[in-house]
């Protein structure tokens, strides 16, 4: 019994300590924005990294999701005889929900995991210690460019995902199932308003922050809890990073939706 209480207490303390450390980590990364050296080049490199890593995966996912949406939407809507609403159904679900979420999940899997592993390897190979010994803040030097790059890349990739998804829905709905093209586009343009786009943008910014934060944090502290640094620590950290980032993306998606709705 006492053992249980103690164990629970220890877990709670660990949790609080972990959260505090995550907070400090984030603060240091943000603080790094204005610090030398200039981050244009490193940020651009990271944008390119995120983009090239996830571009095709997102394209595929988006196209097929859109096509499935077209099929399912048509099937459901035709029961009520309102196939004409297909455009707005596909557009709204992509722009408000699926676009940001799918993009963030794909980027987490492709670029987030790679970032986590990269930082984790720098940790176990003492490269982060080396940076500290040069009086170079590793947060600002390594992580800040990644965060800014995430904030730039994710909304762009989300837009790309939305467009391809809608195109997929159009392809199935109009070309295959014979919904009138005019009705599709009409439904799309009349039902999607600025608020929907706004929600999508807010989401992709939030997801970018969450994803980069969690992935780099996990890599940065790889093996630190166990006190030993080895390759298995990095792989463990990477797995955890992807899982936690994906969960927090899904949870925060719900929260943002409920707030903005």
């Amino acid at each position, binding site marked *: 019994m006492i053992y249980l209480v103690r164990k629970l207490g220890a877990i709670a303390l660990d949790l609080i300590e972990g959260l505090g450390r995550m907070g400090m980590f984030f603060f240091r990364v943000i603080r790094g924005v204005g610090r030398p050296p200039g981050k244009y080049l490193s940020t651009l490199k990271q944008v390119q990294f995120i983009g090239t890593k996830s571009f095709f995966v997102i394209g595929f996912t988006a196209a097929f999701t859109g096509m499935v949406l077209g099929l399912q939407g048509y099937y459901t809507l035709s029961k009520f005889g309102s196939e004409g609403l297909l455009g707005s159904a596909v557009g709204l679900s992509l722009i408000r929900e699926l676009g940001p979420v799918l993009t963030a999940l794909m980027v987490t899997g492709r670029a987030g995991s790679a970032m986590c592993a990269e930082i984790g*390897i*720098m940790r176990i190979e003492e*490269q982060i210690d080396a940076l500290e*010994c*040069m*009086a170079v803040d590793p947060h600002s030097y390594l992580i800040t460019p990644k965060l800014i790059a995430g904030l730039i890349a994710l909304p762009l990739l989300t837009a790309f995902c939305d467009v391809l998804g809608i195109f997929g829905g159009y392809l199935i709905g109009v070309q295959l199932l014979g919904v009138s093209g005019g009705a599709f586009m009409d439904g799309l343009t009349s039902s999607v308003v600025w608020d929907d786009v706004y929600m999508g943008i807010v989401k992709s910014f939030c997801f970018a922050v969450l994803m980069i934060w969690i992935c780099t944090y996990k890599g940065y502290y790889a093996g630190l809890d166990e006190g030993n640094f080895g390759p298995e620590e990095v792989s463990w950290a990477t797995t955890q990073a992807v899982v936690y980032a994906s969960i927090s993306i899904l949870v925060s998606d719900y929260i943002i939706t409920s707030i903005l709705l």
Partner: protein
Amino acid sequence: MSSHNMIEIRGLDSHYKGRQVLFNIGFAIPHKKVTVIMGRSGCGKTTLLRHLIGLKPSESGRVFVEGQDMGSFDEKGMANYRRRIGVLFQSGALFNSLTVSQNIAVPLKVHTRLSDETIRIMSLIKLHLVGLADFLDYMPSQLSGGMRKRAGLARALAMDPEILFVDEPSSGLDPITAAGLDDLILELRETLGMTIIVVTHELESAVKIADQMVVMDRGNLLAVGTPDEIRSSQDETVLRFLRREAEEQQVNTESYLSRLLGRQYKAGENSTRRQGGVR
């Protein structure tokens, strides 16, 4: 406190996850001198170095830099201290996504507004110093272990540090290159008046470069003194270390056997018991 000491260590203990690895270490590192730390593998040399460069906070015991307690350094104080030091890690710790010259340029790019061309010439100068001028644009993965070490040394020298920490610079180097590094260390002390702390296993090289030698054994400080003092030491363990004699392994044998044979074997009990354990 004497102003001739760059760093002073007092009563330093160190732990990893509850296991103590340093016991009450205390000695001083004089200004503009070469201090060599020696000791067998695993005795805590690298750990001690990590305390001196502020990577491992001291739980008990203190490290003073020019009379100031390192534990009281805030972020800025620590950054100021670290701008004055150069560190070669035991693993080299090169940034493996950057070329050798970009590695050396990292501290310069962050701390100065020097032009790229100046920085390139500077890294060439430093690399030439360690005999790697031809490998400016190589990636760390394209270098041998000893070359990585030397590139790490060049990087440690990038900011013209006042204090240089080197963890086993000559491990993995042939005798000739290693001797070259010894000469370089002496030259740095001679010409620039650098305070240099070297961890090494090589007794010959230690005697050659040391102004002060520190001998450690299993987390304890065994002896501190000039090479001559150490060599004329009366301490059994020090002498044995210097003579490179294997230690009598009585204590270890017992724990080894009890580990092999399980709990039946109790250290210190007679041999009949031991046979029982085997059977």
